[in-house]
């Protein structure tokens, strides 16, 4: 009977459990969970603040998930060391657990750049975990002025989540636009406008230089009074365990298509990893939920002796604020052609290079965008489809009769 150990208890871990169980129903599975909560997906915490979900409904899997899959979970424990030679891990409690196959799903941690006077801020929070959300919820009152450092996905979702709970919300970012990692200027401007229309104040191209209690001094010299500070500048992959065990690590833990690290029988999945993005043909950290699950699942299948690959990863994001949605996927490579469609309510930007759709940004109109995503993921030659029709509207009709027959007349 094989012994599987999973460090971490997020979506990647859940994927790993389900991947293992798809192949091996007998082996033992131990999950090391730093958090006291059963598995949930981090992005849900902003919806928690919005009352769109609650602690019960947030659970990623049913209440009987661990029991059903015969998983023992060590809640509140962290792994402090992996011994690749002896195939053991050591917990913070000192307990040593042997493994036949190990999956590292340690996720990422907030990255806080050095900022002067940060220690003077009484109410400062990250926005990564349920516990962060619960703490913020406690701290924020209807009179609170909230300052969020970072206009990325986390910062803005936090802003949306706190909307209506706080007196004012200000978001600042060193970047000149919101969501700078996924949107270009034009798209970001539309998003920003919409956020501003909903009462979010932005200070862009600048960040806090210094904190003095409940006052932030910006690089621009402007000062912002606040009661609650949320630090959402960025995240760093948690790579230390693998790195210390001698595994190859860059900005994330390096994994192959089978989600294997350079250490024997050690796999890694989720936000802690760095892997191949086929849309840009480069290796990068893509801290994304769908990929995390798929990596975990792939790792799990392989740990249990099956054969799975995850070889078509692309970055993609579905995010929305105050009813305005945004879908992005792939990349916008240099020298690409852009197909654009835009009006007051929506923007569509499709990026094409070398007869392939490499990426897109869509705001406002989200109908059937998965068809575009599949074009990127499958690297479909655009000359083989009717792209003139497709770019106007995603549709199977433009994918050719054979593909349509394959999809609609049989099981896929």
């Amino acid at each position, binding site marked *: 009977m094989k012994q599987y150990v999973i460090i971490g208890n997020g*979506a990647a871990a*859940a*994927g790993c459990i389900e991947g293992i169980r798809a192949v091996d129903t007998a082996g033992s599975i131990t999950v090391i969970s730093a958090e006291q909560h059963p598995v949930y*997906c981090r*992005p*849900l915490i902003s*919806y928690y603040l919005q009352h*769109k*979900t609650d602690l019960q*409904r*947030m*659970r*990623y*899997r049913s209440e009987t998930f661990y029991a059903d899959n015969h998983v023992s979970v060590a809640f509140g424990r962290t792994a402090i060391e992996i011994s690749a030679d002896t195939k053991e891990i050591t917990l913070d409690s000192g307990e040593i657990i042997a493994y036949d196959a190990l999956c590292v799903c340690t996720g990422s941690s907030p990255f806080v750049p050095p900022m002067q006077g940060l220690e003077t801020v009484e109410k400062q929070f990250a926005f990564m975990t349920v516990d962060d959300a619960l703490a913020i919820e406690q701290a924020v009152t209807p009179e609170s002025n909230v300052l969020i450092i970072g206009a990325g996905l986390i910062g803005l979702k936090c802003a949306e989540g706190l909307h209506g709970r706080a007196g004012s919300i200000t978001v600042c970012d060193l970047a000149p636009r919101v969501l700078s990692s996924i949107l270009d200027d034009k798209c970001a401007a539309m998003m920003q406008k919409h956020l501003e229309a909903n009462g979010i104040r932005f200070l862009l191209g600048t960040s806090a230089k210094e904190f003095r209690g409940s006052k932030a001094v910006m690089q621009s010299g402007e000062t912002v009074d606040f009661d609650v500070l949320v630090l959402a500048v960025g995240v760093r992959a948690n790579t230390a365990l693998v790195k210390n065990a001698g595994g190859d690590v860059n900005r994330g833990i390096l994994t192959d298509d089978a989600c294997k690290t350079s250490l024997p029988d050690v796999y890694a999945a989720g936000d802690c990893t760095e892997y191949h993005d086929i849309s840009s043909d480069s290796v990068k950290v893509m801290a994304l*939920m*769908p990929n995390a*699950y*798929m990596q975990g*699942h792939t790792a799990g299948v392989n740990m249990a002796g099956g054969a799975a690959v995850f070889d078509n990863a692309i970055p*993609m*994001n*579905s*995010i*929305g604020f105050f*009813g305005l*949605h945004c*879908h992005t*996927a792939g990349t916008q490579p240099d020298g690409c052609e852009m197909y654009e469609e835009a009006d007051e309510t929506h923007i569509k930007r499709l990026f094409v290079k070398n007869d392939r759709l490499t990426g897109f940004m869509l705001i406002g109109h*989200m*109908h*059937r*965008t*998965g*068809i575009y*995503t*599949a074009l990127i*993921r*499958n690297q479909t030659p655009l000359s083989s489809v*009717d792209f003139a*029709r497709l770019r106007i509207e*995603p*549709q*199977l*009709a*433009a994918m050719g*009769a054979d593909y*349509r027959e394959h*999809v*609609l*007349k*049989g*099981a*896929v």
Partner: protein
Amino acid sequence: MKRIYVKEEWCLGCRLCEYNCAFANSGMTDMVKALRGKEIHPRIQVETDADGITYAVSCRHCTDPICVKSCIAGAISKKDGVIEIDHSKCVGCLTCVLVCPYGCVVEDEGGAAQKCELCMKNTCGAPACVKGCPNGAIVYEERGEAE
């Protein structure tokens, strides 16, 4: 398992399936009350190709469903082959819309995700699109599984 399949040689492009779908999932007992004056959000879409051939597309209930793997809320699951959404868990992030390669998960009136659940959760008893198709262009039958 039984799935919905289309026979495009018999599809007339009348779009009754879309309206029947919207009505079936409206929770109302009168189609006029359910749909009059409203924009419909059907879970089945009629497409027209360049040659004018029409056919309806709805969830394929994939063997290896990427929507299930992608749902951040754990709201999409596969039960007895049927992929369904737990609407109490869905937070409306629309990741499923972004990943479904066939464009079969769509936004509902309230901004949450919805998709064909084979009319198993409404009072139709059998898929409304199939029942209402005037020309037998949509069928609900067993055709074997993908490898």
